[in-house]
């Protein structure tokens, strides 16, 4: 589904991604952990080209894409993204947010988009919020709307960039629940998150990144309970 080869990314003099090779197969759930500044978010952002790597290749579903591709926006449409700060469109209602991609990118007629939107909101448990604006929602509700908005495009893979990091602790569960449901339905997912419970329950693979490199990877339970690399050990010791 995703193939990354020799990816290198610099922000000015700062080398944030170093020779990243990564494959994510269909229906796989990959959890990425690492300290802030380790490059995990940048890696995610390179996959849907919100950032462009200076070196290396990214293949989405077999197609190579780079910043000059004319169909860049179409590739992005196949890669759903959920952000730490939700990034809902504040000037549109909850339903407006969910169907924006359907009507604008997929050009689906409004009434048809509406019925799909209704289904999606039911799926994330927010049917009764269709007509309110994002400002009226809690953080957890906002993030569930954001997930529904991304799902509306029927993406081949979903990227989650610290989806619960800006939530109050009591709201984390509802978002993780939606993500678990998605994982169990067979969605291919790449999740930057330190939610170990989630990683152990639905994660197929866990990747530990440090200073722009993938230092260690393995089954979440194994990596978690028996890390081989010293830095992984130290990091896991810190976050528990």
């Amino acid at each position, binding site marked *: 589904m995703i193939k990354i080869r020799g990816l290198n990314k610099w922000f000015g003099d700062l080398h944030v991604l170093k020779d990243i090779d990564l494959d994510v197969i269909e229906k796989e759930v990959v959890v990425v952990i690492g300290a802030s500044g380790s490059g995990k978010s940048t890696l995610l952002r390179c996959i849907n080209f*919100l950032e462009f790597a200076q070196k290396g290749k990214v293949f989405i579903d077999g197609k190579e894409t780079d910043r000059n591709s004319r169909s860049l926006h179409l590739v992005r*449409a196949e890669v759903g*993204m959920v952000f730490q700060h939700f*990034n809902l*469109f*504040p000037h549109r209602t909850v339903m407006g947010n969910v169907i*924006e*991609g359907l009507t604008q990118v997929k050009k689906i007629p409004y009434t048809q988009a509406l019925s799909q939107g209704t289904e999606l909101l039911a799926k994330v448990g927010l049917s009764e919020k269709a007509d309110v604006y994002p*400002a009226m929602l809690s953080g957890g509700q906002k993030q569930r709307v954001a997930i529904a908005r991304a799902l509306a495009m029927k993406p081949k893979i979903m990227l989650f960039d610290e989806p619960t990091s800006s939530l109050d602790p009591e709201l984390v569960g509802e978002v993780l629940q939606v993500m678990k449901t998605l994982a169990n339905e067979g969605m291919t997912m790449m999740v930057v998150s330190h939610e170990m419970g989630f990683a152990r329950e639905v994660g197929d693979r866990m990747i530990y990144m440090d200073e722009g490199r993938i230092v260690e990877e393995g089954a979440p339970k194994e990596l978690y309970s028996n890390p081989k690399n010293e830095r992984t050990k130290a990091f896991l010791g810190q976050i528990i």
Partner: protein
Amino acid sequence: MFDLPWDFTAIPRFFPGFYVAALLTLQITFFGILVGLVFGLVTGLMRLSTNKLINTPAKFYIWVIRGTPLLLQLMIIYYGLIDLVSIDRMPAAIIGLGVHNGAYIAEIFRGAIQSVERGQREAALSLGMTPSQAMRRVILPQAFKRSVPALGNQFIIALKDSSLASAIAVRELLLRARQMGSATLMMLEMLMIVGIYYLIMTTVLTFLVGRVEKRLQVSDYRD
């Protein structure tokens, strides 16, 4: 009674006689603002471009227009260009006011667009929108809302600045007052009439801008 040199009873008597001039003032202002909004949006977007060939002309336009008086600009358009093109006084006033306000409105739009969080554009792009779709559907609506207070302010300035069109012989309120003042020898009274007209118009404009601001706030309500 004191013997004042003025006859303020002339104010209500002559007030209706300024009606046509007031309409002219409104016309110059309205179309001037319209031209200004178009110029402002285009220039504001050009100014934000990372392409030097696009942002340099925009910067140059803003630099020249903001750095010289409107009165001078009006005179250049109406008198100065006479050998090149002869522009009627009304169109000259509208173009002058429009081009002048465009430079300020460009900066208002630029600031408002830049104030929209980066994440908004990223969310739009991640849904598969093109950069121009993201601008149109996501960034501009939010930027426009944020620019309303500053735009309202600029519109009020434009309304008052339209009085400078009197210098190129447009018989708007101020020129009408000066002509009537000379004719009736009641200069202060006539100028006061015009002052009242301006106050009424700016008050109504302020009210309208406030209404628009309120309307655009629906998405901010929390309960």
